[in-house]
Each structure stands twice: as structure tokens, then as C-alpha cells.
């Protein structure tokens, strides 16, 4: 068991170094730095709710960076094509397919975490700078606790998408198709809660319709990523947030990721890699 963990961690270190070598992190951080500098100009267009708008901007830029990382670097790393024989090289070593899946996931997750850490620190100082530039009434509160919670939620949502990328890559050959399916997955996750709300509003109360149950079943497979979105609380005075709700959200995300990785491992074990 310990050997398994060691091999997985070794592979994950390779993935991290490979990512750093390809300047994946550096390029995204540079992009974010430029964008977050834009935040210093963006808030000039907001007359009153400057704190909220600036905070939303910082997190949105981070989300875009994370998605760029996932859709381009992560999919390119994970997908296997005939011309990309890394997977054969790695599996020629004494490493099982399960260890390969876990190692790649951990490596990419580490890169994602590093990216979010750097962006989080940059974002914090950007927000502090904006807060000092404007009157208190326009930027009352900047809560470090909810700032960290928002980053944790953002990272958890990105890790869910990363695990789904692992799963889709296990089943389907080719980077572009994996990218399309990942984007479709993201849109379904975003759209399902909205569609559910719209449909439920049209159902008369007390009716025994099956549709709400179908939507609920849908959210089992396509989780509502909005439940991990806590950025609305970063600049609110006296925010009210149920700790059980928060804990349940993260626990659900963690168990979903484990489940998806397990299925990915099963698929890799069954598939003929040739």
C-alpha cells in the first residue's frame, strides 16, 4: 500500500514538474496579474458597490484561469493519442493503471492548488489596495475567513471538473472530444439547477409529478457547482451561513471526486490502450 502511494506521488511530482516546465502556471499567473490590474480600473465604473464588484472580478478571473488550465493543459496532459505515447512510457514502468490515474490526478490537482494559491494571494492584495483607495461606505468589509472559504469552494469546483476530465479521458480517445465533453458537462452543471427551478415553478403545488425527482437525480450526476460558490459573502457585513450547509457541500464534492476517480480507474483497467 505504501509503495502504491509512493509510486503515485512520484508520478504526481513528474506531472507538476512537467506543468511548470511548460510554463502552464507562469503563463496563467501572468494573465491573471494583467487581468487583476484591470480590476484597479474596473472598479472606477462602479459607483457604490465597489467592494462586491472588485471581489467578484478577482474570483471570476481566477475561475477563468482555472478553466483555461483544465481545458487546455490538463486535458492535453491526460488525453492519449497515437502521437502522444507518454502513457505507454509510464505504464511500461512498474506502475499500475490505478496508480497512474491517481498520480496524474494528484499532479494536476497540485498544479491547480498552486495556481489558486498564487492567485489568491495576488487577489487579496489587489482587494486591500482597492479598499484603501475608496471610502469605507463603498467597501465596508473584506472578510479573510470568507475569502479563504470562497477560494476553497472555487478549488473544490475545479477539482470536480478535473476528476470528470480524468473520467472522460479514460473512456474516449482524443483531446478535442474530451474538451467538448468537458465544456458540455460544465454547461449541464450550470444549467440544470436553473432548468429545475423553472420547471418546478410551473408545476402546481401538491401534484405528484415525477419531473422534480428526475431533476434531483440529474444533480446526482451533474452536481450544482453553485453550492460551492461563496464569493457573495466576502464583502458582506454579518453574513449568515449555515456551517452544516458548507460542510455538506465540501463533503459531497470530496465523495463525488472519489467516486469519479474510482470509475476512471475501473475504465482504465478494462480498456485496451492500443
Amino acid at each position, binding site marked *: 500500500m505504501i509503495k502504491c502511494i509512493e509510486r503515485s506521488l512520484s508520478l504526481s511530482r513528474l506531472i507538476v514538474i512537467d506543468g511548470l516546465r511548460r510554463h502552464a502556471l507562469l503563463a496563467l499567473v501572468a494573465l491573471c496579474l494583467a487581468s487583476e490590474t484591470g480590476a484597479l480600473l474596473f472598479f472606477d*465604473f462602479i459607483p457604490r*458597490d465597489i467592494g*462586491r464588484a472588485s471581489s467578484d*472580478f478577482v474570483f471570476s478571473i481566477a475561475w*477563468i484561469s482555472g478553466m483555461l488550465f483544465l481545458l487546455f493543459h490538463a486535458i492535453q496532459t491526460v488525453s492519449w493519442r497515437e502521437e502522444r505515447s507518454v502513457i505507454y512510457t509510464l505504464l511500461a514502468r512498474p506502475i499500475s493503471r490505478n496508480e497512474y490515474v491517481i498520480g496524474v490526478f494528484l499532479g494536476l490537482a497540485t498544479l491547480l492548488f498552486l495556481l489558486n494559491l498564487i492567485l489568491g494571494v495576488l487577489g487579496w492584495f489587489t482587494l486591500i489596495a482597492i479598499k484603501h483607495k475608496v471610502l469605507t461606505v463603498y467597501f465596508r468589509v473584506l472578510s479573510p475567513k470568507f475569502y479563504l472559504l470562497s477560494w476553497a469552494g472555487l478549488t473544490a469546483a475545479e477539482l470536480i471538473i478535473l476528476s470528470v476530465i480524468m473520467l472522460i479521458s479514460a473512456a474516449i480517445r482524443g483531446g478535442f472530444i474530451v474538451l467538448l465533453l468537458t465544456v458540455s458537462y460544465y*454547461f449541464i452543471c*450550470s*444549467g440544470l439547477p436553473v432548468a429545475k427551478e423553472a420547471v418546478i415553478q410551473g408545476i402546481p403545488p401538491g401534484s405528484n409529478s415525477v419531473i422534480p425527482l428526475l431533476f434531483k437525480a440529474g444533480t446526482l450526476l451533474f452536481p450544482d457547482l453553485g453550492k460551492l460558490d461563496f464569493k457573495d459573502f466576502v464583502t458582506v457585513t454579518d453574513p449568515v451561513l449555515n456551517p452544516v450547509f458548507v460542510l455538506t457541500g465540501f463533503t459531497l464534492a470530496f465523495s463525488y471526486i472519489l467516486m469519479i476517480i474510482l470509475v476512471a480507474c475501473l475504465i482504465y483497467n478494462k480498456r485496451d490502450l492500443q
Partner: protein
Amino acid sequence: MKKLFLFLVIIAAYLLNFSVQDRLTQTHKMELAPLLPAMLQQAALGFLRQLGAEMYFVNAAVFLGTTDSGQDPHEYAPVLSEYFKVASRLHPPFLDTYFFCQSSLSYLGRDYDKIVNNILDTGIKAIPDNWVLPLFAGYNAMHYLNDTAGASDYLHEAGTRPNAPSWIAHLAAILAADSGRIQMGLQWLETVEAREKDETVKKRYQMEIMEFKKACRVAEAIQEYKQRLGTYPTSLNMLSPDFMDQIPRFNLGFKLDWHPPILRLVRPRKSLDNKKRSS
């Protein structure tokens, strides 16, 4: 040489096109493009919905800054209201949407006041510690829509919020009585009086409470009349002497207004004509 010449021609053509387009853009007025429904945008934007809302707000704000003073606001009001509606749906706690919506649309007529109040309802629900938004909605209901009952509800909501000035809750009570809900107005006024710390103001509220109680006695007499005779009195004088000794006199500018079945305690506003005469 030929290649260099061709390259220079292409560059020149590009620069010429650029200057023509630039000149056209300067004379072309900024317009707001119609938006997709909020629900669709919410599904598409996902985690970025808040930024999307803020971008729509910035777009609308910049557009308002480019409008001429002579331009008829009804030309762009339908699209502008859509921007505010979508922005408020995508990001309900974002305050600026509601302020701009109120300032740019509320004076355009009853239809827009209803739209503005619908948009403000979203903000009132999403920002529970803000008293300004229900004040806006109450003002629109009172001043533009002549809906004193709706106005009193909004102002009462504003008055219960943190740091709200006490005059808002007082005005809510006055408007409740004006709309025929005298008993409710009395309860609200008693709450305002209990909370008031300034003795002079407190005394004034106590005097108003006396007037409200007189009105409540008249309302009770009307109900008793209805129960006994099966119909409402056509005039308040019919209540005396069987149901009350005499119709009370009202001070502080209050008077009763009876249009069956609604009894209102009104405080007539000074008309503009009176103001002009006095000046």
C-alpha cells in the same frame, strides 16, 4: 521589390479602412443590444454570473452617460430596463443596479414604475439590511402609482431595517391610515412612538395616536352599523347618536374620508396652487 510594393499597398488599404471605420464610429451613437433571457444567461455563465451582471450594469451606465439631453428616454427605456432586470436576476445583491434603475426609469410613467418596483423587489429580498431600496419602491408607489397601501407596506419594511431613520416608519403608519388600514397604522405608530427617544417627537407621535384612536372608534361604529342594519351608512353623520355620541373632530391636519366600505384617515397635502399663491 514587387512584394514590398504589394505589402505597402495592403498596409495603406488597411489604414484607410481603419480611418473610415473610426470616423463612422465617432458619429455612430452607442446603442444597447437586446439581451438573452436572464435564465439562459444564468445557465451559460455559471460561476461568472456575478461578473456578467456587473458588466451589464457597466454597459448600461456607460450608455446612459452617452445619451443626449434632448433624446427621448422612451426610445431606449425598454432595452435599458431589460439590462437592469437581467443584472438583478444574475446578481441580486449588487446594489448599483437598483440605484441606476430607480434614477433612470422611475420618472418615465406608470408602466416603468411597475417594472422598477419589480426589479427593486429582487433587491429588497436579496439585501435584507438595506433600507434605501424599499424606500425607493415606497416612493414610486406613493408618488407615481398613487398606491398608498403598497407604499405603506414598502415603507414599513424600510422602517424595520437596521439604521433606518424613524420618519420612514412614521410615514408608513400615516400612509396605512390613508389607504384605509387605520388599525394597522395605529399599531405601527405605537411601535414608532415606543422606540422614539426624542421627547418632543415622542409627544407629537402621542398626539397622532390620539387621532388614530378616534378614527378607530369611528371605524368600529361603522362595523356595528353594518352588523345591525345590514348596510353601510352613506354618511358618517348617520352614526350619531345611536352608534356614537358625535363624530369626533380631528386635529393635526387629519380628517376622515368615507367612501363605503373604506374609511380613510387622511392628511391632505398642500396643493401646488396654495404654494404658488403664498409665494
